[in-house]
């Protein structure tokens, strides 16, 4: 008889959701966490960064007070107070998870887990003491750690990662962000608005390389307007190691945001028979099952997109399989959001991906400059781009850039899931005046009859 029916390693957005789902299925469940409930997402990722970005947005608004007929003087950031607010928000959320664990009668085990048998884990606590637990099913949700360059070791002072960036005590005068993914772009926007000189370099030929090229170009232009130096298709070595040959960038701090590695160290996966894929993430099937029977992996440690909501849904899929109701995750339906200003939100295929295989497309666009609401709120920079297959007008990709883009995406996630065509979106009455009208107009544009452009 095992100690638990389901044991989850890691209490991030994948792990804690999986634990709650397992408990709701009536399983005797425990979750192992070595640091904070809530994982990176709540403590060092999604939530605290959103708190910082809100400060940056408010600061930007205050700077534009005059545009709105308001008078504000001495507008500036109290940087330590901004950082403190972010920590407070994160800590408050983490306590909420603690409550959810208790409510669902989930045992929280503190320590670092390591396989000592196929279904057996040794937990090492902070004081070095160890205990052994067994479980019928084990879900690995240990997340990721930031990738680093071997020749550019992260020291936490001059060369930092997002985690150090979230704990900065003072504003650096200048920052070089390596990598223009979500982290590079969000910190780039935040630090620029706080007052730092920001340079972002990206080896790919566009910022936000997973996003639609047209949208990425739009964001890049806005960043340039904000005073951020953006260099795409730029190798880092040239700048940092061969400065004499190319441009020399002198900065106070370098933020390394170049991707992630799976957190598998110390798990002793060999003992359990869990195999990794060629990129070092845990290899799983459609039901999140690893190469070891009864052992599942979800979230960042299982690769694909590194997104909290993807981890949560994979957690549900793993528990569904354990409970005999498999419901594999459909990866075409995972939205992605970046919270710099302008925001970027997307789901489904980019134009480039959609064109692969010779598919014919109908593309509808709507610029925020034509939206009364966008003008009224002072954010006319933005656009909606919807991609439909030309054969049946089915929505296959949605891309929004602009203020509140991430909140506008919801209806398009639903539309994609429900297999809507351009007609359903164009014929759905959207309240006026809202930014969401742009979605309706973009769909109408794809059908060749947008009203307001």
């Amino acid at each position, binding site marked *: 008889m095992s100690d638990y029916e389901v044991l989850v390693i890691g209490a991030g957005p994948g792990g804690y959701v999986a634990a709650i789902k397992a408990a709701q*299925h009536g399983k005797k469940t425990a979750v192992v966490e070595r640091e904070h409930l809530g994982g990176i997402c709540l403590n060092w990722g999604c939530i605290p960064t959103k708190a910082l970005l809100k400060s940056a947005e408010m600061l930007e608004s205050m700077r534009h007070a005059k545009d709105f007929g308001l008078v504000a003087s001495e507008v500036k950031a109290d940087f330590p107070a901004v950082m403190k607010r972010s920590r407070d928000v994160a800590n408050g959320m983490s306590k909420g998870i603690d409550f959810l664990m208790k409510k669902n009668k989930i045992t929280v085990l503190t320590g670092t887990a390591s396989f000592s048998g196929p279904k057996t884990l040794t937990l090492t606590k902070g004081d070095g003491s160890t205990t052994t637990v067994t479980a019928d099913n084990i879900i690995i949700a240990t997340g990721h750690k930031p990738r680093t360059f071997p020749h550019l070791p992260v020291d936490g002072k001059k060369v930092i990662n997002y985690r150090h960036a979230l704990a900065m005590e003072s504003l650096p005068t200048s920052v070089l962000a390596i990598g223009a993914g979500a982290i590079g772009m969000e910190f780039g926007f935040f630090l620029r608005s706080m007052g730092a000189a920001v340079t972002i370099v990206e080896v790919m030929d566009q910022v936000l390389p997973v996003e639609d090229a047209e949208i990425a170009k739009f964001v890049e232009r806005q960043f340039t307007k904000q005073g951020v130096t953006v260099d795409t298709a730029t190798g880092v070595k040239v700048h940092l190691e061969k400065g004499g040959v190319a441009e020399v960038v002198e900065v106070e701090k370098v933020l390394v945001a170049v991707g992630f590695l799976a957190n598998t160290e110390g798990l002793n996966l060999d003992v359990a028979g869990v195999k990794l894929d060629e990129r070092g993430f845990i290899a799983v099937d459609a039901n999140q099952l690893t190469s070891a029977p*009864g052992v599942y992996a979800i979230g960042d440690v299982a690769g694909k997109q590194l997104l909290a909501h993807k981890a949560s849904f994979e957690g*549900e899929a793993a528990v569904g399989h354990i409970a005999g*109701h498999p419901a594999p995750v459909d990866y075409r339906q995972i939205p992605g959001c970046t919270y710099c200003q302008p925001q970027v939100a997307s789901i489904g295929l980019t134009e480039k991906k959609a064109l692969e295989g010779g598919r014919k497309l109908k593309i509808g666009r709507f610029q925020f400059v034509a939206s009364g609401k966008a003008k009224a709120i002072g954010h006319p920079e933005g656009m909606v781009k919807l991609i439909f297959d030309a054969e*049946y007008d089915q929505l296959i990709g949605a891309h929004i850039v602009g203020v509140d883009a991430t909140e506008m995406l919801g209806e398009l996630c639903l539309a994609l899931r*429900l297999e809507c065509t351009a007609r359903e979106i164009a014929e759905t009455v959207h309240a006026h005046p809202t930014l969401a009208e742009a979605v309706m107009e973009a769909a109408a544009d794809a059908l060749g009859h947008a009203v307001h452009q």
Partner: protein
Amino acid sequence: MITELTFPALSPTMSEGTLVAWRVKPGDVIKAGAVVAEIQTDKAVVEWESPEGGTVRELLVAANQVAKVNTIAAIITSKGEDIAATLAAAKAKNEKLAAGATPTAPVATATAAPKPAPNFAAAPAPAKPAPVKKGPRVSPVAARIAAENGLDLTRISGSGPDGRIVRVDVERAVRDGSAKAAAGPAAPAKPKLKVLRADKADASVAMSPMRAVIASRLLASKQQIPHFYVEDVVDAAALSALREQLNLLDGVRVTVNDLITRACALALRAHPRVNATFDGKTVTQLDSADIAIAVALPDGLITPIVTKAHAKTVRQIGDEIRVLAKKAQEGKLAPAEFQGGSFTISNLGSTGISAFSAIINPPQVAILAVAAIKDEPVVQDGAVVAGKTLRLTLSADHRAVDGADAAAFMKTLRELLENPATLLV
């Protein structure tokens, strides 16, 4: 704890599967994770593991049955609880789901209307009567594809949430050609006739060894054997319907030719004078119906033989013919596979031909020419109605077979083909 094992979706696209075999029986005590059954999904045979341990109490899906995802297949208890109520509810649920079965799975007595696994259904769902549905639930793009392809949505089973018809379901129906609405759109465009070409020089083609054999044998046959012909028209409606029904079984492909071969085998055993060889002196009536099937090759034809066809099922005959035909195309037939035989069938039905007659393959004394099944008017109860007809022409050697023998054989053959269930026993 009472656990219901519901038929799982083992792949993202799976909406139903065949329970190939149970690995447990009522009374067995199993651990969680034990393999309880093998399931044929749309992709492979997969082992089905029980999420719970306990005692197997009831199996509600028989081996080899097709079941929709979420059919309650078995009941397991952890402490020997009374399962009467659970069992009754499960049977009622399965029956209700089976009532919603679609025509794509007529053999599935335990077929359930697709219903996704409820997320937290450790306990059986409350027995609330399903609301009467006015029409099928369908996604917008699926509705559009169905409309453009003339599909009847009521004949498509949905794989989405609560049986919602989604794009993959209608695309499958488009591919299958199933679920066509009664007044469907125009038939697919006719293929272009490729007959026009530029002039070229006359060509002299040397006779291949195979052509030489065909030439000498058929010349001898036509010159030396007094051929006579008996033609009959078979009402093939039932035969076509049976074939369609058989082909609903996943993994089964039965052709009209397979059914005709089986019918010939039975008729030949009933008419030994036709199932014979003649060497000019002695007629040898053969016991076994060893039926040669003419297979066209790029330059000629060959007649591989289904031996003891009277002792084989339609499916065995069909499988054997396809193996032999493939070998024939590849030139890999062993001599034993095409020499001998008691009777030959030549089927040109695939070309749509109306009727033809064939030359006897000596020392056999008869050969059957099979044309295409045609949509033609037939008379039923004194009225002319649309029907399906099949013309069969028997060529017989009058030295060994008389007209009455040939006609009797053809009558038996017609009766078998018009009552095709006789071919299944």
